């Protein structure tokens, strides 16, 4: 069964450093998303991406964040200058064209720790 994959599974970085989180969505999917879950809190929407552009972003997704689909298979989230409060689990998700992309399938997540 096809699945969303994410790398790395864990990342530790120093405050102020740039990080890139990588995701490989399910191959025929067209809609891509990033969510995050701070420890002990709910899963929060960050951004959605469709047709090579951002279709919506949350208030959390400020200028420090960017997304890119550099090729036909990867989808990345970049944090330019990490802050302590960026420590969280980051989930990538994708959905297909069926039902206008309503059903999202999630990857296993990348746990980011900013020191």
């Amino acid at each position: 069964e096809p699945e969303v994959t994410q790398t790395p599974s864990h990342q530790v970085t120093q405050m102020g450093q740039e990080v890139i989180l990588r995701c490989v969505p399910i191959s025929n999917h067209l809609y891509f998303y990033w969510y995050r879950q701070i420890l002990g809190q709910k899963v929060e929407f960050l951004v959605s991406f469709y047709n090579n552009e951002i279709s919506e972003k949350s208030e959390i997704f400020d200028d420090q964040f960017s997304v890119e689909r550099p090729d036909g298979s990867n989808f990345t989230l970049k944090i330019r200058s990490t802050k302590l409060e960026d420590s969280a689990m980051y989930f990538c998700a994708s959905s297909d064209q069926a039902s206008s992309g309503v059903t999202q399938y999630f990857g296993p997540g990348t746990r980011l720790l900013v020191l």
Partner: protein
Amino acid sequence: AQSVTQPDIHITVSEGASLELRCNYSYGATPYLFWYVQSPGQGLQLLLKYFSGDTLVQGIKGFEAEFKRSQSSFNLRKPSVHWSDAAEYFCAVGAMLTGGGNKLTFGTGTQLKVEL
């Protein structure tokens, strides 16, 4: 804006007992509703979804959920819980985006513990 409330933070049931996890949503239109499960250190696995039609939906692992518009609820049920069902369960509502796709808003989750 949409929102989801899961009133139970923790629930403990005995193996073999029935289970009901509560979910209430707020959304202006016909909602797309989902239940996801997260085992420790794992990602979010889709259990079931409701778009329209039959208000009782079946999912994987023997779970079902019932959509009740009058109560704005989408409670998850299982007739007989197995020890492997111990996990965190998230209810979510989806809102269509004008630019394509949809945005999920999650509840705070219910941690299920199963006693042997």
